[in-house]
């Protein structure tokens, strides 16, 4: 009998649970994937014939087409060049996902159009009293843990003003801009060390440190470059300038850099292209820079041991210049921090292999890539196989440190890696991507495998996680400078052509052309999508996205208010579908107004915009966000303010009046 009872009870429980779990879900069924063993269906073949598609075209379409609601495998972060932003796109669909405002105001995101928080980020990048509101973003770098992308932060430089910005990948928004106090412009950044201890930045067009005035005749005496190591505090999500330092280098015009990893962890490498220290003056009858800086057969690869530099800085062996700790050349040499190695003249990219053992320098004016070995470098240092340059810096013997040279073609610029032991180098003049084999410690093992044309004038390339210790292969993006005939005509300013290559097979194939009509990407980072975990909405209502903490002026529902103190007016406003509260704001001409807005929404995508006509105010207030702006009520009149994101059926009703009494 007891058994009977037990069975009965169990039966009831099981029935209950099954019934509870089974209910509901009768959503529209997903169509089953096609069985194509017998070839493509006739309808598909008809379309292909009508559009004149080749079998390669069909394969490319099938590899890249991403149906509605399906997600991409990778996220691509492209620098936006002199649009001053960063563009996020999906791979393989190549659909643009977001244009992240960084150095340039952007009114959709409410970046730099009134919002105090974003204005403060931009103002931190001002140069003296000059408000800088442009930038030229070149090289994005994802934060790394143990040499692998960790999906937390993205860094991007501004070449023109020698600045670095930090983007938080929880909300894909810019949190910080730092200005290098020693350099007025800097090209070779950003590159992170394997645990994002530092963001490396190399200078380019050298000036006296702090860009003080000095005539060009004093070039060798006073003009200098630096390799700057920006200290990054991951927990704060900020670069800490006080804990950053710079290593002084000669005025050789440094170019791209890379940080060592694994075997070469602790080192940073930067190219240069004016070992001639040529100073130009074409208007005075001198050869132009383009000729003068290309006279010698070799320039110098700079090798910086940043771990030793860090020790020297911690030991107080620095000078402080304009607030930045600087390791001067003689100290850097004495401490074993700075070495040079000859490299074929005027190279562009320097890229460290995934195992960190090999450093690849792309020739640009030389048809080879030159591969250096970190072991050989170390042996040459230990064996003092060097001569000194005129600043007393050891120049390691080329033959002692060089592992191999591979002739790839014309204009090698930049190199990436895959998971099969191949390296990929862009060939600017050939308009092609070269695939070549890394030979390890066998110089004869380094061989060109194949080349694939791209359209046209390729600059950088970015392979899937292709600059980490674990590259994925699969995809490679060619960032081409010229499109020429690839797209419909849009007048004299053409888009660039960002091409996606499938590198998974024996032959590389171009499978997508993406016209980039909103910036000039220089370099990109491609990260596996599942490494990113951004927020859908801010963690709580009343959030300050710059501080990533509850906002000081957060306003709860029911606590909306306007406080007047003399001519100081403080407005605490909330927004939620479909109303702004308050809807009437009464001011007097000459009032100073501080206006705080909290978006009370907690639903994904329920963003409200805010614009105030006539006062240059444009805000984007994402779900949970609190933002503030201030202005002087200089113009009297009757003004309208309203929501600018079409948030609901009653979006147009979401408005208010601001009265400014004369």
């Amino acid at each position: 009998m007891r058994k009977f009872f037990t069975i009965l009870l169990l039966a009831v429980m099981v029935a209950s649970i099954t019934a509870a779990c089974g209910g509901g879900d009768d959503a529209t069924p997903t169509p089953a994937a096609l069985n194509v063993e017998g070839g493509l269906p006739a309808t598909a073949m008809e379309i292909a014939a009508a559009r004149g598609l080749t079998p390669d075209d069909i394969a490319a379409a099938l590899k890249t087409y991403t149906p509605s609601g399906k997600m991409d495998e990778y996220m691509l972060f492209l620098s936006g060049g002199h649009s001053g932003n960063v563009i996020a796109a999906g791979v393989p669909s190549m659909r643009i996902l977001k244009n992240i405002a960084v150095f340039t105001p952007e009114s959709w995101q409410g970046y730099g159009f009134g919002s105090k928080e974003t204005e403060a980020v931009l103002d931190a990048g001002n140069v003296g009293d000059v408000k800088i509101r442009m930038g030229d973003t070149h090289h994005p770098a994802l934060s790394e843990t143990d040499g692998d992308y960790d999906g937390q932060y993205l860094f991007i430089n501004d070449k023109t003003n020698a600045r670095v910005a930090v983007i938080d990948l929880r909300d894909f928004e810019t949190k910080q801009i730092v200005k290098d106090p020693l350099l007025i412009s800097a090209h070779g950044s950003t590159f992170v060390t394997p645990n994002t201890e530092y963001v490396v930045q190399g200078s380019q067009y050298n000036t006296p440190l702090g860009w003080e005035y000095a005539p060009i005749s004093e070039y060798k005496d006073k003009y200098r470059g630096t390799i700057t190591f920006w200290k990054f505090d991951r927990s704060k999500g900020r670069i800490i300038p006080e804990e950053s330092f710079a290593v002084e280098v000669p005025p050789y015009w440094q170019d791209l850099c890379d940080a060592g990893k694994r075997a070469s962890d602790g080192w940073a490498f930067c190219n240069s292209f004016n070992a001639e220290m040529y100073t130009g003056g074409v208007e005075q009858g001198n050869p132009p820079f383009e000729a003068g800086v290309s006279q010698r057969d070799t320039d110098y690869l700079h090798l910086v041991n940043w771990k030793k530099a860090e020790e020297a800085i911690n030991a107080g062996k620095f000078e402080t210049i304009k607030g930045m700790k600087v390791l001067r050349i003689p100290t850097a040499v004495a401490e074993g921090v700075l070495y040079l190695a000859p490299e074929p003249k005027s190279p562009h990219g320097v890229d460290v292999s995934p195992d960190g053992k090999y450093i690849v320098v792309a020739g640009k004016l030389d048809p080879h890539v030159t591969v250096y070995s970190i072991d050989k470098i170390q042996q040459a240092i230990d064996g003092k196989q060097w001569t000194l340059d005129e600043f007393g810096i050891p120049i390691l013997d080329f033959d002692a440190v060089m592992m191999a040279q591979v002739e790839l073609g014309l204009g090698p610029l930049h190199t990436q890696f895959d998971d099969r032991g191949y390296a990929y180098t862009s060939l600017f003049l050939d308009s092609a991507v070269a695939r070549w084999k890394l030979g390890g410690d066998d110089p004869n093992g380094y061989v060109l495998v194949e080349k694939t044309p791209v359209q046209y004038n390729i600059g950088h390339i970015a392979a899937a996680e292709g600059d980490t210790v674990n590259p994925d292969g699969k995809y490679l993006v060619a960032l081409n400078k010229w499109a020429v005939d690839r797209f419909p005509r849009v007048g004299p300013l053409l888009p660039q052509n960002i091409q996606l290559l499938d590198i998974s097979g024996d032959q590389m194939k171009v499978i997508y052309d993406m016209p980039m009509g909103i910036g000039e990407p220089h370099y990109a980072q491609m990260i596996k999508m599942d490494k990113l975990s951004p927020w859908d909405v801010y963690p709580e209502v009343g959030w300050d996205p710059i501080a990533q903490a509850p906002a000081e002026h957060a306003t709860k529902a029911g606590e909306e208010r306007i406080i007047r103190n003399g001519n100081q007016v403080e407005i605490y406003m909330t927004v939620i579908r479909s109303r702004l509260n308050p809807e009437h704001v009464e001011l007097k001409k000459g009032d100073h107004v501080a206006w705080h807005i909290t978006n009370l929404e907690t639903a994904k995508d329920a963003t409200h915009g805010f614009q105030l006509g006539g006062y240059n105010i444009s805000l984007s207030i994402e779900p949970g966000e609190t933002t503030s702006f201030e202005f002087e009520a200089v113009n009297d009149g009757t003004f309208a303010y309203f929501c600018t994101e079409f948030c609901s059926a009653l979006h147009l009703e979401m408005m208010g009046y601001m009265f400014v009494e004369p």
Partner: protein
Amino acid sequence: MTMSTDMEKLIGPRVPADEFKENRARYMIPTLLFAAAAIMIVVSMFLPYWSLTLHAPQYPQGLTVVAFVNDLEGDIAEIDGLNHYIGMRPLGEAAQFEKQVSIYGIVGVSLLILAAIFVHNRWAALLALPGLGLPIFFLLDLQFWLANFGQNLDPTAPLSSSVKPFIPPALGVGKIAQFRTEAQPEIGLWLAFGASALILVGLYFHRRAYKPLVEAQQK
């Protein structure tokens, strides 16, 4: 002895010890069924009783309200936000009294079921009755509040002219503006129904076990 006799009139006859030894299962079955029912009802307090999912094109994941006996969870803020367009009161205002007393009420109901174990006459059925009716009471109360909320819309709300007062069904599929609503019982309510079933079966075995004793007592 008088005391005991009066008591036995009230709660029914006690089982003689040797009879219990001889037919242990006969008397244990109703006891265990009632105890299991009481436990299931107590457990159900911690589990969701009911859910309502709203489907609309712009909410591909749907919006869900999950009802516990003393709480509402889920996308309440978003649903309240949408409801203001049709002038429906915030969901938190519904069934406030029920939510306040529900825990005490359910513990009480369970204690009454346990008490029925010790009552060996027809009064046992009365004690078990609240437990038996609990899930039905929950659904009726729910339907009352759904009707109350759907019928009392603010006539000055933005969409008052296009959405007229309505009664959302407590179970099954409904339709309001662009939303398709799906209301369904959840595990807590199934447990409560399970407890009802156990009580019913328990009452049958209870009657079979004790009726002869009661009849013997009356003789």
